[in-house]
């Protein structure tokens, strides 16, 4: 049971406030904001309370999404609800930002009104909701050049966005239905790597979590078929043919996906509903088919002047893209962050098959041999466009019936580092 829902900007401005059960004081929003900002640390607790009122909040799109409850209802229900609400607002308004929320007050209010009745969640299915929602979304200038710089691959901020069409994934789903806007469909394969490399250079742990997401702007798409690599296999026992199989340990599908052709041809069939959905999720642990993208060769020494010398050699083991790729050293910068006691080395671009090295000299007071042991670990964060760590590829993307008029199909791949740690 939810008493109130409100959305706050990161600065504490009231964007949306809706009271479902009445009887709460007006200052409740400011009480929450005070509580949330009073706490230090990287993340305040999900549930906080003020007298009898419990605040449950999440952060998405730089906004606070808060629900309050008085009676003991499950915190799962509320966090899940807030996540769904944020996803729905994103689908309906096109993107999730302070600006888009501000421009769509009426729409979001109507959504909230349909989703929650007197504090009870009625439905969050966008297929049901589209029958009731009347208000049109307002979008900011859709094709402005200004937006080009910060448009991301949905769900993942990426520099790759310059390749994808600019207004790509930040359109509201409903307007496309009415205006007969461009028919587009985006299929993204997003993978996140968690890697731990031991101090001896051996791989200790490697996990890949991946998902295939579809964002659909096709008003009349009855069925789409996504073909994966034919040699794709699940679990350890199945091995198909010879050569490099694309294997994952575990795999789960969206409920709308039909799998009758999956066994034989590795084809996912689904009727995508408008908006964004995760079609398939998969995991692979410990047994990556290809070499790790980055290797680090560190040397840590003490020089005669009592300075700490860190010599880092970083190699990118991805296949070199082309010969014409510029090999001169890309823009690099390094900075010492005293409060976190870390050196941050930034590399803007790193071509496959090349190597970079850096030498850091640090003045450390009273450097002893014991303190040498405290150096490390090295954490890498990166983003690899057009590459999947598991080797999963989309063979084809077919829509039926054949779309009338121009339609565009986009397939994008990206691999992120979730946590890529190299111990020293």
């Amino acid at each position, binding site marked *: 049971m939810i008493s109130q829902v409100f959305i706050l900007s990161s600065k504490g401005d009231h964007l949306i406030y809706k009271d479902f059960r009445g009887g709460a004081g007006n200052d409740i929003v400011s009480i929450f904001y005070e509580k949330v900002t009073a706490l230090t640390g*990287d993340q305040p607790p999900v549930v906080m309370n003020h007298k009898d009122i419990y605040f449950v909040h999440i952060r998405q799109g730089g906004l606070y999404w808060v629900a309050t409850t008085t009676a003991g209802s499950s915190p*799962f229900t509320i*966090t899940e609800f807030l996540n769904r609400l944020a996803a729905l607002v994103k689908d309906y308004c096109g993107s999730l930002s302070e600006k888009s929320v501000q421009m769509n007050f009426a729409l979001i209010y109507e959504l909230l009104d349909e989703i929650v009745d007197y504090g009870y969640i009625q439905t969050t299915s966008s297929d049901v909701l589209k029958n009731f929602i009347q208000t049109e979304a307002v979008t900011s200038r859709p094709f402005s050049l200004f937006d080009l710089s910060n448009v991301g691959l949905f769900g993942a901020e990426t520099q790759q966005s310059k390749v994808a069409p600019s207004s790509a994934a930040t359109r509201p789903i409903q307007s496309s239905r009415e205006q007969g806007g461009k028919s587009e469909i985006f299929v993204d394969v997003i993978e996140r790597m968690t890697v731990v490399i031991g101090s001896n250079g051996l791989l200790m742990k490697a996990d890949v979590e991946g998902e295939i997401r579809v964002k659909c702007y096709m008003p009349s798409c009855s069925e789409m078929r996504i073909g994966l690599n034919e040699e794709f296999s699940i679990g350890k026992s199945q091995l198909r043919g010879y050569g490099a199989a694309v294997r994952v340990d575990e795999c789960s599908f969206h409920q709308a996906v039909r799998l009758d052709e999956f066994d034989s041809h590795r084809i996912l069939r689904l009727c995508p509903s408008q908006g964004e959905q995760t079609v398939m999720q998969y995991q692979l642990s410990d047994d990556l088919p290809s070499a790790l993208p980055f290797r680090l060769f560190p040397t840590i020494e003490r020089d005669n002047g009592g300075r700490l010398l860190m010599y880092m050699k970083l190699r990118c083991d991805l296949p070199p893209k082309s010969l014409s790729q510029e090999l001169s050293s890309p823009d690099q910068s390094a900075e010492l962050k005293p409060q976190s006691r870390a050196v941050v080395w930034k590399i803007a671009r790193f071509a496959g098959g090349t190597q970079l090295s850096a030498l850091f000299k640090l003045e450390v007071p009273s450097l002893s041999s014991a303190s040498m042991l405290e150096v490390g670990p090295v954490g890498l964060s990166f983003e690899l466009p057009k590459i999947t760590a598991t080797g999963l590829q989309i063979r084809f993307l077919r829509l039926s019936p054949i779309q009338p008029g121009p339609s565009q199909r986009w397939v994008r791949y990206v691999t992120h580092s979730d946590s890529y740690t190299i111990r020293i």
Partner: protein
Amino acid sequence: MFSSHRHDDLKEMLDSNKDSLKLEAMKRIVAMIARGKNASDLFPAVVKNVACKNIEVKKLVYVYLVRYAEEQQDLALLSISTFQRGLKDPNQLIRASALRVLSSIRVTIIVPIMMLAIKEAASDMSPYVRKTAAHAIPKLYSLDPEQKDQLIEVIEKLLADKTTLVAGSVVMAFEEVCPERIDLIHKNYRKLCNLLIDVEEWGQVVIINMLTRYARTQFLNPNINEGGSGDKTFYGSDEDEDEDEEEKEKKPYVMDPDHRLLLRNTKPLLQSRNAAVVMAVAQLYFHLAPKAEVGVIAKALVRLLRSHSEVQYVVLQNVATMSIKRRGMFEPYLKSFYIRSTDPTQIKVLKLEVLTNLANETNISTILREFQTYIKSMDKDFVAATIQAIGRCATNISEVRDTCLNGLVQLLSNRDELVVAESVVVIKKLLQMQPEKHSDIIKHMAKLTDNIQVPMARASILWLIGEYCEHVPKIAPDVLRKMAKSFTNEEDIVKLQIINLAAKLYLTNSKQTKLLTQYVLNLAKYDQNYDIRDRARFIRQLIVPTEKSGALSKYAKKLFLALKPAPVLESPFKDRDHFQLGSLSHLLNAKAGGYQELPDWPEAAPDPSVRNVEVKESVRAVGTVTHRDTGALWGPQRMEGSESCSFPRAVPQRGVFLQTIAPSSALKSYELLHRITGEGLSVEYCFSRQPFSPDANMVAVQMQFTNSASSDTKNLHIEDVKLQSGMRVKEFPEIELLPAGETATAVMGIDFCDSTQAANFQLCTHTRKFFVSIQPPVGELMRPVFLTENEFKKEQGQLMGMNEITEKLTLDVKCRNEHAIVQRVTTAANLSRVPCGSDKECRFAGRTVTSGSLVLVTVATKEEGAAQLTVNCEKMVIGTMLVKDILQALTQ
């Protein structure tokens, strides 16, 4: 001034005749409400528009009304009549929304009107309206609790409803209004269990929680015979077979079949996409299932760890509690709880907690290696938590105590003071277990007093030295000497420990320390802190006997140097499981308002027969079908040899919604095989109009086999399917045995390719083969779709000319009202009703099952039974045949 001027502007817009202006005004007003600004002075201008025809404006007016009606009661009453009219509207969506708004207006005068409206809506023919009625119940209850008895009657009535749409909402109302009336559930228990999988996901959560409570009052504790520790584990294989259950269980406890039903029907929901549903099932299994079966939830919970960090946080809290009680359950997933450098601190700390709980003799070396790397982290809180976790592992697992202790001692030379301090505190606790073995560590720590500045750590060291001064007889007095020197500059907790140390040394080694002790006590006597002054006075009286001091000083040694029990390092989650898992109270570890404690199992099971329901034969047959259907669905979809590959059960949410919104009508059954030709075996089939879940492009055909022969029929299956090109058949799973006199049902799917061509095949038993064929009426080749009035008109506009067929007809005498027309059309064809403003027209919509082409039907009535039937369909053959069938249905 400015704002009142702007409001005038809005009022003007609201009074205009143009809908676009009104809409613009309403949007601005709603934006004001959304930002929490006061817009109440516009009430009269807004309320006038409540009857506005434009649906967009109307909805925004409703939003406004609900917000301000309580403040402007008199004016709000003006709008009531509009809603009362709305309650009678032929369109179910309008009826529902009128009821929703009416029940949201918190004005006490209209309570009787609300009560009446709710009662009427509870017997509405549309399930969507009944669902709204269920939602209105708690609203009325909070407005006027005196209506409780009447409301319970409505709840009782709605609980008996058989549609999935209503089930979730009415249970919500039940939980809010009368959770104590558990007796209302008895008769509906089995139905709720069976419907559960098709209920809307938020409804599932509420129902599962309610059923958990119900089961705790009605069934016996399945673990009653196991008692005590029982660390027996069951490594979550998904294929535990319920059939074996009875054999395995050799103890006298026999599980109530209804208890089993609940466990079986909730298990597939562990695959749900909704974290709240997964957690609800997980807590149900944790609280209700036999120990051996609880393991299945571990995998689902671990899967949730890949969700948003907020969800992770809540999941880990629950996993931490569970991992204490049932450690074996999560052991296979140990690696999933390893910490990532990107996790927020609170998640790191929770993961540590889980890892610590999971540690045992076999995995401790891996875990400790993991912990060692965590200590290097930059996150100080996390490092401190890690050191404490190491301490807890050391206390729990005696084999590694020395290793841990050595590791912690090494940390004492760490450059980071916080690390050292935390280590000292933990070492102190560990040493208390076996001090005699570790006097060298105590010596080492004594040296640290020169360097460590963290008060808690200093205090710990001093306490250790004092407590075990006999093991370090030479060093202890020296430490006291140093401390006496710095006494005045120490923190309070350190000062207290210095006094303690002095007292203890005085008692054991008074020759060397007498003067020092006196000195310290004198310093303490003039301290600013009264605790310290008091302590000094107290100790002086106790250890330095004077004539005034009483008998106590004789026991000073016993008082100070008594053997102290080693502290037990416990998980903070140890006793959390007395709160229901997944509840807010559990998360906060404190009783939250409105928390209902999970009842204890009863000593003896209450009468199970209360749940028996008289069922008519036909209904029961359908019940078994759904069950079989689920089984079939799980069977073929599971991949060979890969347990790890999980498919969420296809819960066709859209399908459910549509199907329940379409008026249900009796299903016509056809004969497939006559009793005489079949030599005792007769088969009937009907088109069940349920979505055929393995393949949505197939029409579901439900078959009922009756064996009226005197011998059993075996191996009923289909062979030799002869089809026109393009058609496909999904056979029903073989029925292995049909005993004489019994009836069985099965569902098969046929893709007719949107044609009425027959599907021919052989029905085989273990002895005979029969040629049979199924030919569908054209009306069964479609499935209902939900369209709004506008969408219907738009689509119809695109299907004109060749695609439109119109016929004039005279309606049958019995078929001149709207209800009868709807009834007959939906019986003839599987279509759903489209809401419509005019009462002269009935509209229906559907899509053909294979190609998904739209089928639109309009019946417009005129005077004296004259009517016009229009069918729009891009497939002309289907259109023509459908016209024929509907004509026949309406004229006879």
